[in-house]
């Protein structure tokens, strides 16, 4: 309870209470009544005269009642109000965030999602009888939990059915759904059948967003029909202490495939420094522990996230990720089998989902490389220095070899095929490195030779060019390349790319516009570049082979983000696929005759197992790996479109006047006082 005019109380009480008390101190004008003797009366009143006047004040109920009436009247003048939930009389759209950060358990023991649901239920309870509401739960996808309904009990039941996910938080789909439903509502309104424009007289819907404000796509949100002035953000979050694993890598050593290296990136988003142990488990067996010390994350509010939401974009290059970061490198260890590697942080914080990360490891195998060349002394000398299984074919042999020799189904049997000045369209899924040639696929054309041009730009941050001083490379001539737009140029000449990389159809292509050898004017082979004599040429080949083959064999499988679908190949003998979820429960997929099924119920982090599974798909891991979700600091301001939403704590509160209640109480007390005065029941 608060007072809009607090000073009035003091003034009114000061003016009325002292005179009332003074009146009680004044000598009463008493009526004289003769009695036979005052002998016993004096004894009776003897106690009352002890310690007067305080004794009188102590026991004078009438005085207290009158004081109470006066004080209540003074309170009425002070315009008392209390914070009450606004009673909604219109159309409500309740948008409930169910993303990973909403799993944070706040100080009162409830998770943010539970708080959001409770707040939403309170608002639903306060709805006017004619008001209607719809409920949309959103994370990376939006779900209509309840369409527009006036049944408060049904809405409450629907609200309670919203489940926690560990997905990212995206609002755009929820907004689109809300707009669609509210538009339907206007068209199918009271004047059904009439021509009702979108700017109908129907009351605009009020959208209440129950979230901690950690929403990814606010910067790209496109709101067309909803009135942003009718949107409210109900913040349900307070805690900000969280440490999370934002990335994890488990890869086999290139030189020693049996050796496994595990790295993890850990960030502290909380205001306090943190020190804890990071444990490494392999197939649930403890393997290693590292001590992690992290400085406090940003203690101030993140201005970017509060104004535009752009900082929540996980891959925004210009905005640094929040929090202090530490890289955890576990000691390499021998591991020859396949299994699951888990990194676990022994740290109690707000969010549990990002304290564990998993990676599924395939068994080691040596990289198989096929060199297709008419004969290249330099490549034939360099490649055997690398830990590879090398086979060599001439272009004619390659073109005439049976498919079964080159591929296993659609997939190449070789991790990498190096073509030396031989362009071909005989390509399967795999890695390809073209020297002075191109894959004969759409969008890739090798043009005329180019002379007398220089290399003027390159990307030395790319793994292929690591430790390679490109400035020292001299090339006699190379061919003009026309490449698809998604191609990434690693070395660029004046008018044409020299070295490019792109992926297509599950294959990777590294295309070098020149060959190590060229033909002179009479058709004799000649040196096209002296690069081969430079010490960094073997380094380049090492990088290229490792880069093109590593993602295929030596690394852990690609991790899946919560909510992302996973493509599962159907084993030839299986009609159904059973997926066991990490926290119990199973799903059965019936792919039918389709060779690949997609499983999308990956909203919880952990290791999922598939039975029966295609080779290499027995398990897959789902990890949060999101700085935006791990940064659980509540955002107090959101910019939605052109409007700025300031978060309200809990439900939208209004000042509800209390003076009628106080006035009634004062009248009741006055009545009691009158009764007591007349009946003389009490002193």
């Amino acid at each position, binding site marked *: 309870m608060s007072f809009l005019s607090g000073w009035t109380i003091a003034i009114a009480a000061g003016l009325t209470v002292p005179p009332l008390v003074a009146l009680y101190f004044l000598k009463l004008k*008493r009526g004289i009544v003769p009695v036979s003797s005052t002998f016993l009366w004096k004894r009776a009143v003897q106690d009352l005269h002890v310690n007067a006047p305080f004794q009188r004040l102590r026991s004078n109920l009438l005085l207290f009642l009158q004081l109470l009436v006066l004080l209540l009247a003074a309170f009425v003048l002070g315009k008392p109000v209390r914070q009450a939930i606004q009673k909604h009389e219109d159309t409500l759209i309740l948008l409930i965030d169910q993303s990973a950060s909403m799993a944070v358990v706040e100080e009162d023991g409830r998770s943010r999602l539970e708080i959001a649901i409770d707040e939403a239920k309170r608002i639903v309870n306060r709805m006017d009888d004619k008001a209607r509401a719809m409920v949309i739960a959103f994370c990376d996808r939006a779900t209509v939990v309840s369409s527009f309904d006036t049944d408060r009990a049904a809405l409450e039941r629907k609200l309670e059915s919203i489940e926690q996910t560990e997905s990212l938080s995206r609002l755009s789909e929820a907004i689109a759904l809300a707009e669609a439903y509210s538009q339907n509502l206007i068209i199918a309104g009271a004047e059904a059948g009439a021509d009702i424009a979108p700017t109908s007289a129907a009351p605009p819907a009020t959208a209440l967003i129950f979230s901690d404000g950690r929403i990814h796509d606010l910067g790209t949100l496109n709101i067309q029909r909803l009135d942003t002035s009718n949107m409210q953000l109900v913040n349900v979050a307070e805690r900000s202490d969280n440490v999370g694993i934002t990335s994890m890598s488990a890869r086999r050593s290139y030189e020693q495939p049996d050796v496994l290296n595990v790295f993890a990136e850990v960030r502290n988003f909380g205001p306090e420094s943190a020190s804890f142990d990071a444990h490494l488990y392999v197939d649930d067996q403890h393997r290693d522990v590292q001590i992690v010390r992290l400085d406090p994350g940003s203690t101030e509010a993140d201005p970017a996230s509060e104004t535009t939401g752009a900082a929540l974009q996980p891959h925004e290059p210009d905005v640094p990720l929040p929090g202090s970061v530490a890289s955890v490198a576990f000691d390499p260890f021998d591991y020859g089998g396949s299994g699951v590697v888990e990194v676990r942080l022994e740290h109690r914080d707000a969010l549990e989902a990002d304290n564990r990360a998993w990676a599924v490891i395939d068994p080691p195998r040596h990289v198989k490389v096929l060199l297709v060349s008419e004969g290249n002394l330099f490549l034939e000398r360099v490649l055997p220095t690398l830990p590879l299984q090398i086979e060599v074919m001439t272009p004619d042999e390659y073109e005439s070899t049976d498919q079964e020799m080159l591929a296993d189904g659609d997939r190449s049997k070789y991790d990498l095929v190096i073509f030396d000045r031989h362009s071909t369209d005989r390509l399967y899924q795999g890695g390809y490195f073209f020297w002075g040639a191109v894959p004969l696929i759409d969008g890739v054309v090798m043009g005329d030779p180019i002379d007398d041009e220089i290399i003027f730009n390159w990307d030395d941050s790319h793994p292929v060019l690591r430790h390679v001083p490109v400035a020292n490379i001299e090339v006699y001539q190379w061919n003009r390349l026309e490449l698809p737009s998604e191609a990434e140029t690693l070395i660029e000449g004046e008018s044409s790319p020299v070295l490019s990389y792109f992926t297509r159809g599950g294959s990777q292509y590294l295309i070098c516009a020149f060959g190590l050898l060229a033909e002179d004017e009479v058709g004799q082979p000649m040196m096209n570049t002296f690069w081969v004599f430079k010490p960094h040429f073997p380094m380049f080949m090492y990088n290229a082979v490792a880069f093109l083959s590593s993602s295929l064999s030596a690394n852990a499988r690609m991790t899946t983000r919560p909510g992302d679908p996973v493509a599962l190949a159907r084993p030839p003998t299986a009609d159904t696929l059973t997926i066991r979820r990490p926290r119990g429960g199973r799903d059965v997929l019936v792919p039918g005759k389709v060779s690949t099924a997609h499983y999308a119920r990956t909203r919880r982090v952990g290791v999922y197992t598939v039975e029966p599974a295609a080779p290499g798909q027995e398990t897959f891991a789902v990890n949060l790996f999101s700085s935006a979700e791990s940064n659980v600091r509540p955002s107090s301001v959101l910019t939605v479109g052109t409007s700025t939403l300031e978060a309200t704590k809990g439900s939208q509160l209004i000042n509800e006047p209390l003076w009628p209640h106080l006035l009634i109480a004062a009248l009741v007390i006055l009545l009691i006082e009158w009764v007591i005065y007349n009946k003389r029941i009490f002193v």
Partner: protein
Amino acid sequence: MTAEGRQHGNGLLDPEFMNRLDQLEIVSRKIFRGKMRGERRSKRRGESVEFADHRNYVPGDDLRFLDWNILARLDRLFLKLFLEEEDLHISLLIDVSKSMDWGEPGKSLYVRRVAAALAHIGLSNFDRVSLYGFADGLTCQLAGVRGRRRVSKVMEFLSALECDGGSNLAEACKQFAIRHPQPGIVMILSDFFDKGGFEQGFRYLLGRNFDLYAMQVLSPEELEPELAGDLQLRDVEDDDLAEVTISRALLNRYKRNLEAYCASIKEYCTRRGINYLFTSTDTPFDQIILSYLRRRGLLR
């Protein structure tokens, strides 16, 4: 009783009631030596016609009471003893302070009627009856009245009593004790609202070996006061003022005090052999005389 006597009830007693009183007599629990021979049989050997006992003759005895028959047969001197018949001295101390002029009906009228009845009984039995009015001392008296013919005088005396002055029981008892050394029945009729206390007055009388009766008479207005509001209570005797705010709690406290005060008088009397009688003026007067006092042993 003669018609003349009955006509002298003076409004205190009606003739029919006086006839009923004729059947009663006052009984004393103690042996008193009366001044005169009366109709009351005494345990003292005396000169009545009713034989009681013999005793040996000692020189100096009245020879008229010598038992000659025994002397003739046994040749020994025996004296015949006869029962003595004496009168009883009944003293009634009537409170006539201003506080007695209170209540409806008034306490004064009530105690005068009680006194009239007792005096009538006493006179009817040839007892010696003395009446005293007292306030801050003995204010009036009618002492030593005997015989039925004096009933009218007694009634006149009682009718003429007026309430005036404050209460001083101790002074009144002191004066009474000095004037009347003879034993007898003494009954004090009062409300005992004496700010000086009642104990001292009783103490004066206890020394005289009276057969004491104390009758406390209160009015319903004193037992259940019907007062309300902020009042200034004025004592009718001494104009003393008491400022009170009447409330349920205060009334309860007053009643508790009154009960405690009456209980203290009763306890004091019981411990000292004084007969304590309590009555309210709303109790019918004839019931007090014909029933209550008989039960308590004063009347027979």
